[in-house]
């Protein structure tokens, strides 16, 4: 990663000097990091440190003011060249990323299964051979969606509507929904912050299983124990900058900077 720790330059994600400000407030002041396939990046830091903004920039929900984002060597965003950022282009680029929100944001009028299949079906309709193979394509999508729901332990909830599910179940549906599009990098924005502590566990367990399957993830979280255990690299954000980073054992077990030490004291 940064500092040439890893020589292999086949990065799946490369973020370079990312800047973002809202009005007068500079929220991201130059973020650099890269990920390799199968990496799990834990992003920690207090509220307002820029974690959410960084994830939203990766998912093109915010447009950075400066910097570059590349996936698999392809430059998806370059602040120096905004001409490529048409709505349609951005829509395609987004598909490299998935995002699991803090408040789930499931579609309330659809069942768990339909929440997972909807976006895939809409995308499938764009392919030229859709009409000819409609029945087969739809059956495949549904089968995969059922498998994804089974993976997050919700085989028996496929026909439930979001309001019939607990927060933890909703969040697991949201994870299955994000996985359905097979993103290169799956991002989590404090996935358990809206949940009761006793329910968080089931969501964290689902994410842990994804890590075991070597799915590349960026996780913003306040669950320090979980972050330490699941991640392969950790960054500590403060005031819009990466204040400290490294191996999770080092970052959590042996923090170098005063800032991270006091942060960890406060949250642990």
């Amino acid at each position: 990663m940064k500092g040439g720790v890893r020589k292999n330059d086949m990065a799946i994600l490369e973020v370079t000097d990312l800047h973002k400000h809202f009005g007068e407030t500079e929220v991201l002041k130059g973020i650099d990091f890269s990920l390799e396939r199968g990496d799990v990046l834990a992003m920690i830091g207090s509220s307002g440190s820029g974690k959410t903004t960084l994830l939203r920039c990766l998912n093109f929900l915010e447009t950075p003011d400066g910097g570059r984002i590349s996936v698999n060597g392809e430059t998806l965003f370059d602040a120096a060249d905004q001409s490529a950022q048409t709505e349609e282009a951005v829509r395609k680029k987004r598909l490299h990323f998935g995002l699991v929100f803090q408040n789930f944001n499931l579609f309330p009028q659809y069942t768990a299964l339909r929440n997972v299949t909807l976006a895939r079906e809409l995308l499938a309709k764009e392919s030229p051979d859709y009409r000819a193979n409609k029945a087969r394509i739809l059956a495949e999508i549904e089968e995969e969606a059922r498998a994804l729901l089974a993976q997050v332990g919700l085989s028996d909830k496929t026909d439930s509507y979001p309001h019939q599910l607990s927060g933890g179940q909703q969040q697991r549906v949201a994870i299955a929904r994000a996985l359905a599009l097979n993103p290169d990098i799956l991002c989590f924005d404090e996935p358990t912050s809206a949940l009761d502590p006793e329910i968080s566990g089931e969501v964290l367990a689902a994410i842990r299983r994804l890590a075991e399957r070597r799915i590349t993830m960026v996780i913003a979280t306040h669950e320090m124990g979980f972050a330490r255990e699941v991640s392969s690299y950790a960054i500590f954000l403060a005031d819009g900058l990466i204040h400290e980073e490294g191996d999770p054992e080092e970052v959590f077990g042996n923090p170098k900077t005063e800032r991270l030490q006091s942060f960890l004291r406060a949250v642990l």
Partner: protein
Amino acid sequence: MVAQPTLLYVTEQLLQGFGVTCLIFGVTLLCALPLGLGVAFCSMSKYRLVRYISKTFVWIIRSTPLLLQVIIVFYGPGLIWGAEAMGRITAVLVAFIINYAAYFSEVYRGGIESIAKGQYEAGQVLGMTRSQIFFKVILLQVVKRILPPMSNEIITLVKDTALARVIAVKEIIMFAQEFVSVNALIWPLFYSGVFYLAFCGILTILFGKFEKRLGYFRA
């Protein structure tokens, strides 16, 4: 001595007027529902000028009596440009459609703006287009939310049709009033209220059913 009209005769006459009432109601609803959605989008446009024009339109229409609007639509073009008068019923329909589109637009706007931003963002990160997000994700939630205020407006529309007689469009009240002036009978006027009651009763049941059908999810 003029022969007193029978109940059957009065009913027949009132039904004739009620047909016109239903026509005004139906055509207005059919046209104002989509038009109002268009106005709502203009009111929420990212272009300031469009927003400004749309909001001014809504302000003018909601701030003047529908009665006056009907008169202006009917007499206005002739008086101002010397245009040929349009049919009376056409004038009523034009005025009603414009008026109700303005009211509906505000109901739509309230509903659309009440949907959490996260719903749009969830659609966006799943690679949906703007129109897919609106039609597949947002619309049904909006419909569910605006159903109660919308049924209010629609039931008001039923009774507002009585304003058509200001330019002598023979809707049900006008037929009933003829019995007052010709036969000195007041009861046909009271009787006309039964038609409104029945019509609005049916609408209320329909709205209730519709609300129930959308009760399977929470938005």
